[in-house]
């Protein structure tokens, strides 16, 4: 399919979805499924006015800082584990252990350590982001073609140059695949963190709206979370496209060579 065709479908599907929602919900009298018209009115009022600074901005801020910390830490530790098989063997039981614990179960620990607020939420989000990046970076660094490294060594590249100009770019496709998963994990952790343990933020807002029976508000909250996920993913795809343009072409060329 052409890229234009794909972009077209990317626009057409949501438009159809929301149109159908609008039409089908218009006459709804169920308090649980309010008309989309009312939900969108609430959406605009809430997210662009009343709750913009109190809930939306903090959640986005926590998400982005947690994402940044988790990605950097995951790439650094993952690179070490990929480069040092012994270190990897020693620490991997520990990382597997912590990785197995769901983020929600770590909320109480976060509360004890950091109380409520920015630090606690960022801690949880970065932890959720850290592990998928760690795993993919370790695999990516370990899987770098040894011929690349031999070439770099034969031309006298220092270790820092080899790391920065050979190992990281060669592992980049896998690191970025991990980022894609991490973004979803991070968003989930953002919502969970403020659902369970704070008095503000997107997750808190949804729970609060539901318990006080402001159901259009709850729906508006859900749409906002979906929208954030969509925007985060779109931004990611743009970055990936720029960084990994070579990878698509290279993979295509290697597959064609293998088929021939």
């Amino acid at each position: 399919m052409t890229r234009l065709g794909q972009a077209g479908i990317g626009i057409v599907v949501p438009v159809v979805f929301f149109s159908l929602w609008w039409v089908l919900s218009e006459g709804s009298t169920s308090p649980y499924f309010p008309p989309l018209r009312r939900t969108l009115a609430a959406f605009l009022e809430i997210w662009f006015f009343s709750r913009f600074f109190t809930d939306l901005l903090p959640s986005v801020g926590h998400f982005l800082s947690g994402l940044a910390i988790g990605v950097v830490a995951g790439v650094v530790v993952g690179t070490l584990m990929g480069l040092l098989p012994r270190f990897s063997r020693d620490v991997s039981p520990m990382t597997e252990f912590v990785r197995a614990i769901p983020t929600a179960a770590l909320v109480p620990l976060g509360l004890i350590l950091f109380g409520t607020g920015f630090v606690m939420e960022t801690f949880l989000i970065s932890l959720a982001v850290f592990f998928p990046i760690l795993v993919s970076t370790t695999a990516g660094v370990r899987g770098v073609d040894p011929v690349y490294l031999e070439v770099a060594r034969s031309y006298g590249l220092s270790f820092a140059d080899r790391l920065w100009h050979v190992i990281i770019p060669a592992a980049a496709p896998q690191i970025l695949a991990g980022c894609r998963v991490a973004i979803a994990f991070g968003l989930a952790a953002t919502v969970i963190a403020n659902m369970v343990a704070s008095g503000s933020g997107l997750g808190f807002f949804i729970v609060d709206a539901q318990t006080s029976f402001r159901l259009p508000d709850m729906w508006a909250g859900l749409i906002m979370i979906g929208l954030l996920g969509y925007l985060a993913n779109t931004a990611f795809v743009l970055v990936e496209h720029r960084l990994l343009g070579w990878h698509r072409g290279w993979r295509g060329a290697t597959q064609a060579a293998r088929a021939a």
Partner: protein
Amino acid sequence: MSGRQDPTASARAQTAKTPVLEVRDLGVTYGSGPGAVMAIRELSFSVDLGEFVCIVGPSGCGKTTLLKSIAGLLSPTRGEAYVAGKRVEGPPKDLALVFQEYNRSLLPWLSVGDNVTFPLAARKVPKADQLARRKAALAQVGLLGFDEKYPWQLSGGMQQRVAIARGLAYEPAVLLMDEPFASLDAQSRADLEDLVLKVQRDTGLTVVFVTHDIDESVYEADRVIVLTQRPTTIRQVIGVDLPKPRDQITTKAHPEFVRLRTEVLKLIKNEPTAS
């Protein structure tokens, strides 16, 4: 052995010819104890400035091991190698290596131009210099104007040209080539054999070319070093006095070419030879 200590002999060697590459009593054993494998028993040879030397041997002999020892990618168990008079203790600054696996030795995230210059960038060669050297090297291999392409957009033969250009741009004293054309089709292979001969003639570069192709070794070389089965030693060194410039048709039909290739073949197959 004693000849090397003799001052007159070494003085004579220096005035006559300068060795750019010297391998002395080099030996490599993998592992230790009863499971140890001796890949190279003992090798000594030298390559003079501007010489084109081919190293051939039966498959499974220590060609790659020898090459890695010279390139500083592997420490020999015994003996040493010298490149441009300096003992090899890591990858030498005066040596460029061209790998067999052209599709893996070029970095797929870098353009052709950047693949040629990244070793120079790592050496902190000034930008303007890098660009001049890249242009000259790409011109020498017939890829002028391909800077912006990615290597995987090119054919195998062209990719190996890029790898050769990278070696040339590095301006080494020795260009070391590890079966560079073994994975190419016959046509590209013949083209590249001629290309390397031409570049060598134009630049006076010293080339050490490892191959398992006997015809190729005789066609390219001033001298062919024939190795034995492992544990490897030198079976024989054969001078190739074929007229230059050589070409695929007349040189390969030359009676001397036919005689030499038969001789090398017999040496590799370990059969008695006339000489």
